[in-house]
């Protein structure tokens, strides 16, 4: 890869081009149908989720298989504080941080008793934790109706500043801004902030501590790193990103139910992180974008193709999507353990892998 840092002009030109592309992207997508803008918005949410999970899995090396629980916590926090369910309608800039905090709290709640465990035990406990959260969401409708059970919560408030609502279409300067397009810009700002925070975190004292723990926990402790605290911090920070993403998901969808937070979703986010390259922020972003476009891509290709070949649907696109996720996990691990865009550290580690010296 060319080093753009040696060419400041080229560097800034590149950034400018990408910025322009990102700004006009929703209009290009909208010309193909508003559905595509929605898919893009969902992709951005998945980028946020993957980056959150990347902190836990990629940076700190703690495999979390119940990550979607934090997304659920954030989503339900938003839904409960901004819907007719409790009659509360707090503004979104108040709730999103609360959602992040509550999710972080759940992260600590999960982390505190389990962090002493070895990596693979931790993975299974987190898997169980994710299931427990879902079971509670499903059942906490009695005796006090908190989550409204399997029916979920509907009519959740969209984001709004005063009279400016993100859900209503509007025309500004002669351009038609539909609801999803407005959300797109908001999400874009948030995701850029999240990426920025992640980049700064990675090279910070904390980020290096995480990496040290991932590579060798005993050595890290010997170097004076408070491993328990730093690992808890990874859980809390990863969870808080999930919580914020969940809040936004809640507002954009307007309806949530426990069905949106099943184990398969955790696996999906994990696949994104793995495919992109654990520990590499840009790789994770790439993985999230690629895999979140797969369902729509399959719907428009495999579906019609089967109709044309067999006259009816043999395998639903939804099933193929899950098979893709499964094969991504297996094939990436067997063939290219660093992902399609491995992090620098991992690339160094994997370089001498011919003689089996893998970290």
């Amino acid at each position, binding site marked *: 890869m060319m080093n753009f840092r040696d060419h400041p002009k080229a560097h800034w030109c590149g950034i400018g081009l990408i910025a322009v592309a990102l700004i006009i992207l929703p209009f290009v997508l909208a010309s193909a149908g508003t559905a595509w803008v929605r898919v893009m918005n969902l992709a951005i949410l998945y980028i946020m989720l993957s980056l959150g999970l990347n902190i836990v899995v990629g940076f700190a090396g703690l495999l979390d298989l119940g990550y979607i629980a934090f997304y659920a916590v954030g989503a339900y926090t938003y839904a409960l504080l901004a819907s007719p369910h409790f009659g509360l309608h707090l503004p979104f800039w108040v709730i999103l941080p609360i959602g992040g905090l509550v999710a972080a709290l759940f992260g600590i709640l999960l982390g505190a008793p389990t962090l*002493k465990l070895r990596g693979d035990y931790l993975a299974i406990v987190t898997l169980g934790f994710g299931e427990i959260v879902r*079971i509670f969401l499903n059942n906490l409708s009695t005796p006090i109706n908190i989550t409204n059970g399997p029916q979920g919560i509907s009519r959740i408030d969209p984001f709004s500043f005063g009279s400016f609502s993100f859900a209503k279409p509007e025309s500004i300067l002669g351009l038609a801004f539909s609801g999803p397009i407005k959300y797109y810009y908001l999400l874009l700002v948030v995701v850029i902030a999240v990426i920025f925070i992640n980049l700064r975190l990675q090279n910070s004292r904390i980020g290096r501590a995480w990496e040290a723990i991932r590579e060798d926990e005993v050595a890290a402790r010997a170097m004076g790193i408070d491993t328990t605290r730093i690992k808890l911090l990874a859980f809390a920070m990863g969870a808080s990103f999930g919580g914020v993403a969940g809040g936004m998901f809640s507002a954009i969808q307007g309806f949530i139910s426990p069905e949106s937070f099943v184990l398969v979703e955790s696996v999906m986010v994990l696949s994104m992180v793995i495919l992109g390259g654990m520990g590499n922020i840009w790789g994770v972003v790439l993985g999230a974008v690629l895999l979140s476009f797969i369902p729509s891509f399959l719907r428009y290709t495999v579906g019609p193709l089967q109709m044309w070949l067999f006259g009816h649907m043999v395998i639903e696109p939804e099933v193929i999507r899950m*098979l893709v996720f499964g094969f991504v996990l297996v094939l990436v691990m067997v063939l290219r353990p660093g992902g399609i865009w491995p992090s620098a550290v991992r690339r160094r580690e994997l370089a001498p892998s011919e003689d089996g010296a893998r970290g």
Partner: protein
Amino acid sequence: MDIFIQQLINGITVGAVYAMVALGYTMVFGIIQLINVAHGDVVMFGAMVAFSIIHALSGAGLPPLFVVTIATACAIPVCMLLGFAMERVAYRPLRNAPRLASLITAIGVSIILQHFALIIWSRNPLAFPQIIAVESFHIGEATITNVQLGMIGISTLIMTGLALLVYRTRLGAAMRATAQNAPIAGLMGIDANHVIAMTFVIGAGLAAIAGVMVANYYGIAHYTMGANLGLKAFCAAVLGGIGNLPGAMLGGVLLGVVEALGAGYIGDLTNNVFGSNYQDVFAFIVLILVLVFRPSGLLGERVGDRA
């Protein structure tokens, strides 16, 4: 008291199945330190294959017990093949990779198996044909059915057989040696690849039988049934001390009993704030408690932190 005995019977029945599945986890973990998350889905395949066979033979007028035996006899080799293929294709290339890598692969395998099952057997829950006539026997006010007795009896027999295999045969000795120290076992002329493959195959065979039993007991088979069952069996294996065969058996039965009693009494204990719909939570609570307070499990010897 009658509820207690009844739930105890139900718990031991389900626990016997957990124990059979837990053995698969524990044997694989003991030998290559891999949590084979996809093991639960092998159980599901066993149930599904048996479903198809029973369905196909149901009109032939054969004696029910014979049909179920044939179905199980077909499910076992299918699952064994699955276990073998899984090890060969997905896990063997990663034998020396970091542990998380093979765990992630196992999750992938699990997802793949589930969705292949979905394609073959549809996404709807299948009503498992209840061809064995249920007879009840009374113990005080509690009842035990012939199916429950059969399940407990068969699993006891099979687990005894497994124990004999592991502790009394050459293959068993090779398995134990490989589990203790694979390189040294290799120097003694043991083919580690063969032993590990056999471990997967034996575990898958047990899984097939467990699958038929559990599907027949609950009367239902579904492509996701393996995930939850597998997770619980894993909890059972950890409870007993992972890597330890008697531990898995004990853990399975104990977990089944804890779950059944928990589901039976949680309503009374919490004034009906929580009901038996929280049954699935118990296994995880047990798992977390064991891991926090006694990570080596009930029967496991203390192993140092190998991470």
